[in-house]
């Protein structure tokens, strides 16, 4: 299976898992698939499936918790959780909710859901690692709409002041939030200049290009600044009618739209029927 097929299958599984319970932030999950793929599948992050609390592991925090389906699907791919657990998403008795929650999900490091918390938690972890002279890295994935939260900028200042160069913030710049484009709601011309002005090292990448992501994750941060990766992405990437359309922030397809999902994600009628039956 080539990488395109693997990525397609991940999006397919994200969709089917959400569709099975009629609950999903599909578009927000679709935009971060390649970022998580690079970190987890291509092992640009250190983790230990046998011991999720391995003290030598890097830490990943999904601050935009509503992208949870992408994270859960990747955690299943690498073996932190099994297929049965993934299929239980948002069903009674499941540990997998719409937003990640500790301590019951192997591989999930922090409870998130309310936006603007993850970066601050990550700065605390990064600082503790520095205090203890440890080499692990701390990754935190944020939404670009999330950057409107004030606490994010408290954390940005704090991380730069403390020279947390073990901290890597990735911004999923899909340019869309629930009610419209980020630019229309909060006219920010450039996240790059803002982060730079706040003392961060900034790298811009195509957030759907795994090779490009691999390269930037592998590159050592030699500066005494925290690193932000501005990942330019497409909200809803992978399904044409979802892409770049804010209406898809929190909805699932109707019958007519479902045909497009099935066609573009290579989903059979049988798989649609089956996903509704899985308990």
């Amino acid at each position, binding site marked *: 299976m080539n990488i395109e097929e693997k990525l397609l299958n991940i999006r397919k599984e994200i969709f089917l898992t959400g569709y099975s319970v009629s609950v999903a932030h599909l578009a927000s999950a679709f935009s971060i698939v390649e970022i998580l793929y690079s970190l987890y599948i291509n092992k640009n992050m250190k983790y230990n499936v046998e011991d999720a609390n391995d003290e030598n592991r890097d830490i990943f925090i999904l601050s935009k918790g509503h992208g949870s389906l992408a994270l859960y699907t990747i955690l299943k791919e690498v073996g932190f959780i099994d297929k049965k657990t993934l299929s239980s998403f948002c069903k009674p008795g499941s540990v997998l909710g719409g937003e990640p929650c500790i301590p019951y999900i192997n591989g999930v490091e*922090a409870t998130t859901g309310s936006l603007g*918390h993850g970066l*601050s*938690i990550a700065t*605390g972890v990064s600082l*503790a690692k520095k205090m203890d002279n440890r080499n692990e890295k701390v990754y935190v994935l944020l939404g670009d709409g999330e950057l409107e939260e004030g606490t994010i900028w*408290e954390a940005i200042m704090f991380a730069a002041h403390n020279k947390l160069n073990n901290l890597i913030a990735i911004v999923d710049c899909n340019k869309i939030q629930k009610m419209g484009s980020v630019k229309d709601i909060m006219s920010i011309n450039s996240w790059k200049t803002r982060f730079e002005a706040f003392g961060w090292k900034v790298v811009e990448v195509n957030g759907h290009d795994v090779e490009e992501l691999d390269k930037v994750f592998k590159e050592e941060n030699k500066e005494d600044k925290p690193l932000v990766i501005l990942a330019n992405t497409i909200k809803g990437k992978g399904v044409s009618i979802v892409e770049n359309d804010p209406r898809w922030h929190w909805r699932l397809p109707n019958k007519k739209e479902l045909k497009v999902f099935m066609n573009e994600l290579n989903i059979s009628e049988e798989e649609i029927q089956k996903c509704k039956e899985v308990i």
Partner: protein
Amino acid sequence: MQRSYINALYKLMKEDKNVISCLSDSGTDYDEMIKREMPNQVINFGISENNKVAAASGLAKCGKIPFVYTTNAFLAYRSYEFIRDDVCLQNQNVKLIGMGAGLSWSTLGSTHHTTEDIAVLKVLPNLTLLSPCSPKELESALKCAYEIKGPVYIRMGMSGEKEIYDSDVPFVLGKNNTVKEGTDGVIFVTGSIIAKVLEACDKLTSEEINLKVVNISTIKPFDVNSVVENSVLPIMFSVEEHSIVGGIGSSIADALVDNNINTKLVRIGLNDTFAKGYGTHDEILKMNGLDSESIYNKIKKELLK
């Protein structure tokens, strides 16, 4: 109490390098001295309480024991969601220390008063709430907070509180302690306003009215047995530098209802209002009916009914 806090924290920091003093521009010269001695154990987050609370959750995740210290009102209200989601929900070993409980910041007005914190914080699962009444009790509370492996909130005064204990402090987590015996009724009290209650009691005693005084230094977990045991007395009072809505009086009322006890309870505190006026701590207590004379009058009036 600030001095006691710094001294007690200093001892803990010396004993355990994982104890971290987290400030948000909220320290004093003593903190600067401690930072010079233990630079790796003092962090000034700047004026950003929310980031500080969430980052403390991250520090605790890595085995640190952050003592998050700032003006009580800013901690309890501004950072509420961060306390809820990042500390309590994730059950992280973070200690939240509110400096200036009640009306301690007497000249700065209601933005700086902490008169609803018990109401909003006692509903948070996993959180232990301590409310020491004197410098010595604060030291015991701080040591207790350190020993608990989980979130703890301590509210403390900052007005040169009097010491009410002669020698050892009978502080036990989750247990109220009797400060004065009496048979004509019982006053439950929390925090440094206990000094005013004891003054009111002196006057009542001179009139041969002997009220028992019980110090509630652990607000959560609440000592329900203490309420049940004292319900044999003719009347109960609660006195707190806090709204009567959701404070210790409410916790006592809950305990009475839950145990099907029909005892008269009179709650003395701020009556669903923000505090009025400016002045010294004593003056603002008087303006809001919480000085010893006002407490005496309210109790006397009830006893004469």
